[in-house]
C-alpha cells in the first residue's frame, strides 16, 4: 500500500504533471489526485478511448496488445497505461 502511494507521488513530482487517475476495468475511478467532476469525466472518456485503441491494435494483429497510449493536445498530454484490470491515466502540461 505504501509503495503504491510512493510511486504515485513519484510520478506526481515530475515537472508539469497535473493529475493522476487510476481507473478499474469498468471505468470507475479508484484513485485520483484531481477533483471529482474532472476525474469522473476523464475516466469515462478515456476508458472508452483506451478500449477502442486496444481493440484496434488487436484487430490488426491478435498477438499484439496495447502497452501505452499518448494523447497530445495543445495544452496537455494525456498518457494512459492499460492493463488487464486497471488503467492508469497521467495528465501533463505541455512545456511552454
Amino acid at each position, binding site marked *: 500500500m505504501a509503495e*503504491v502511494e510512493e510511486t504515485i507521488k513519484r510520478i506526481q513530482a515530475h515537472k508539469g504533471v497535473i493529475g493522476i487517475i487510476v481507473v478499474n476495468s469498468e471505468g470507475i475511478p479508484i484513485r485520483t489526485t484531481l477533483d471529482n467532476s474532472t476525474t469522473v469525466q476523464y*475516466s469515462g472518456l478515456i476508458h472508452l478511448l483506451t478500449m477502442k485503441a486496444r481493440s484496434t491494435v488487436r484487430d490488426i494483429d491478435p498477438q499484439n496488445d496495447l502497452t501505452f497510449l499518448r494523447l497530445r493536445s495543445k495544452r496537455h*498530454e494525456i498518457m494512459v497505461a492499460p492493463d488487464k484490470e*486497471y488503467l*492508469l491515466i497521467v495528465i501533463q502540461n505541455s512545456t511552454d
Partner: protein
Amino acid sequence: MSGDAATPPEGVIPLFLATKSQEIYSCVCDEHVTEDNPYKLIKKEDIIEDMKKRAAISDFSPVKRIVLDYPGEELLVVYDPDFKYGQNFYLCVTEEAKNKLIQPKSGEEGEDGEQAEDGEEGAKEETVYTYNPPEAKDWVALGSEAEVECEIVEDNRPKLKFIASRVRREFGTPVTFKDRDIDPTAASEEGLAASYMGIPGYDDKNFALKRMEQDSSVQAVPEKVEGSSQTVWKHPCTAAVQYEPRQLSDEEKAAVEQSQEFKEFIESSVPRFELALQQNEIMDVFFDDWAVLGEEDTNFGNKSDGHLKEYQSFTDLQYSKDRTISCIDWHPTIKGIMAVSCAERLSFNDRVDQATQLLMSPSLILIWSFSDPIHPQLLLEAPDDIFSFKFCPTDPNIIAGGCINGQLVLWDISEHADRLQSSRSGLGNAKVDKKKKAMFGEETGPDTPVVRYCAVSAIENSHRNVITGLEWIPDHFEISRHGVPVENRNCECVQIMTCSPDESIMVWDTRPPKPTGQREQIEKVASITGPQTFKHLDLTWKPMLKMVLQKHDGSGEYSPLVFSLKEKQGKRDHVPQPDLSARRESTVGYGRGSSAKNQKPLDAVSSKYFLGTEDGEVVYATFKLEKDNETGKSNVPRPTWACASHDGPVNSLQRSPFFNDILLSVGGWTFSVWKENVTDDAILNSACATKLYTAGHWSTTRPAVFFLGTKDGNVEVWDLLDRTHEPSLVQNVTAAQITSIVPWVVSKKQHLIAVSDNVGTLHILEIPWNLRHASANEVSGMQNYFDRETKRIEYFTSKRVARQSKGRNVVKKKKEDKPDEKSEEALAEEYEKQYEGYLELEKKLLRELGILEEEPEM
C-alpha cells in the same frame, strides 16, 4: 405527265376531235371538259346521227365500226390534254374499259379531286378537317393463309374405334400366373403359339435426333404487389435524462487498492510512465520548429535594411533655427503629431548677458504634423525656455511644461484640437490660406495659431533651477499630501511630478485646492487671455508636496536631473478598479480635489522611484513620507540606495517597457543597466565610449534594444542579445549633438523614432524591420540574461565577502606558524641522517638478493 404517247390500255383508242365536233358534242376543250373533269359521256345515237350528217368529215368516222358495234348506250370520251395517248381525246370502245376508266378514275379522280381541293383549300386558308371513316376494302390475301393452314390441326383420317369386351364373371377372379418359356419349341409342345414378343433394344433414330431449334416464348410481366404500412406518429414530448457516474464507495476503493493485482499493475505501468515523462522533459515536443524557422531567416535577409531610414525632418526657419531642441514628445492619440520645445543654446552667463534680448523672442513649443514639414501646426507660448514637457496621457489637450526658471506651465489646446486632427488629412487647408494672402503678392504661410499658456505656477513656490524632469502621475493612483499613493477615482492624470537640480522634487496637483476661502480669488478678473481651464491655478499654483532628498551616506542633498517612477501609465492590473459610480464628469481643471478621508490608500502601488543626479549618481528613493516620531512631522525618508556610476550628469533614466525592474541610465561617457533591488552593482556597465552620450531610450518593441545619442550626432543602436561591448549599429543622423531620442509606434507597419539635435532640427527616422520586430524568445532571452547577470553579481559579492574574511584568517594563521620554523643547519643534519639510513637499507636489500658487490673500504 410526259408528252410522249403511251400505248393506250385495252379498249381505249385515241381520237381526235376537232373544234366543230367538240361544239356538236358539247365537249369543248377547257369548257365542257377540263383537265379535272375530262370524262364526257356521249350518246351513241348522237354520234350515229352526226356521222350521217357529216359523213366523212365526222371525227368518229375512223371508229365508225366500233361505235356501231358498241353495246352500250353511251360512249365515254376522255379529254387528254397532254396527248398521253397521241390525240387530244380518247375513246373507250368497250363497256369494261369504260367502267374501269370511270369508276377507278372517278375513285382516283375523287381522290385527286379531293387532294387538289384540299391542297387548294390549304393554300388558301386553314384546313377544315373532315372525318372520313375508313371504307372497307376487299381483303387482299398476301400469303398468310398458308401459315394459318399449317398450324391448324385437322384429322386426316377418321378416328378409329375399338371395343374390348370380356365375360363379366371373369372380372375380379383371382389371377394365376405361371411362367413360360419363350422358346418357341417349348411353347409348341404345350400347344400354344409362340406368344412372346421380344423387345430387343435397338437404336431408335428418334433419340439420335438433336433438336436444333425450339420455339419457345417468354412473356415478362411485372409482378404487381400491393403493400401498405402505417407509421406510428409519436408526439414530441419533453424528456430528460439525468445520469450519475458510477462511483465506488470508499471501502471498495480501499479493498481494491489492497489487492495484489493492483500492486502488480502499478509496478508494471510506472516504468512506462517514467519513460514517457522523461522524454517529455528532455525535449519539448510541442515546440513548433517550422514557425520559428522563418523568423531567423528574415534577420539575415534584411541586413542591408538594417539602417534607420530618414523619414522626415522638421525645422522651422523662424523659431527653431540656431536653437536647441530640448525635449520631444509625441501626441498620445493623434498619429503623426509631435511637439518639440526649442530653447536658446546659451550658457548661463550668456543668458544673463543677453537677458533683455531674450525677453523679446518668445519661447515656444512647436507642434509639428507629418503633413506639413515646413510650418508647424501650433505654437505654444511659454514665459521662458522650456526644457521638459509632456502631454497629459488621459487628456491630450493638456500639456505641462517646465521652464528654465523653475516654473511649471500648463497649456490647453482643446480649441485647436480639430486643427491638429484635420492636419493629418492634408495640406488643403494650408493651400487655401495661402491663396488668400497671396492675392496681395505676399508670401505668407498659413496662420499658425499661437496658444498662450493658461496657467503658470507661483514663482516663489516653484523650483529654483531649470525643471529637467517632468512626469504625469499615472491615472490609477494619486499621491496624497503625505506621499501615500491613494486611489484615483476619476482615472485621470491630475498630478505632475517634477525634479530640478535645485535638489528638490515636487508633486503638483492640477485641481483647484479646497475651496476654503479662496473663492474670491478665483472670481478675480482673468488677467490672461486664453483658455480659462486652469484659471484657479494661475500664478498661485503651489506644489502639493516638496521633497528634498538627503544624501544616502553623509550630508548634503542630491540634485536630481531625471527620475523614473515605477508605476506606468496604463499598467493598472495591481490596482483595484475604482468605483465608477463615484466618478464625476469633470475635466482636469475643474474637478475638485477629493478630501483625504475619502481616498483609500493603495498598498499595491509602489512609491519608490529612481533618480539620476547631476553628479552621475543613481539613487533609489521613495516619496512616501515617514512620520518622525520625535517631532511628529512627516519627513522625507533617506534614499535606500545610491551608486555613483557615471562620469557626467545623468541625462536619461528609463525603465524598460518590458521589464518593470530594469532601468537604463545614460550619463557621461557610459551607460548602465540596473535591476531594481540589486544593490551591489549594475547589471551592465558599459565601457567608456569615445564620445559623450547625451540621450537614451529603450526600444518600445524589442526588449533587448535601446538607442543612444552621442555628442557628435550619432545614433547608436545597442542590442544586448547581440553584443554588449559595442553597439550593433551606429548611424550618423546629424552633425550636431543629439539632445533627445524618443521612439514611437505610429502604426503596425511604421515605427518611428524622433531624434532632435542641437541646431533645432527634428529628424524622424523609420525603424527597420529587424530593429522593430522582436524575435520569438527575445523576452525570455533577456530575462535569462538579467538573471545570469544577477547571479554573477551575487556570486562575485559573496566571493568578495568570503575572500575578505578568508584573508583575515590567513594572516592570523601565518603568525602562529612562525615559531615552528626550523633553522637551516638542523634541517641539513636531518637530511644527512635520512641519507645514511637509506644507504644501509640499500645494502641490506642487495645482500638478500645476492648481488651485493664488493664493498669498497669506507
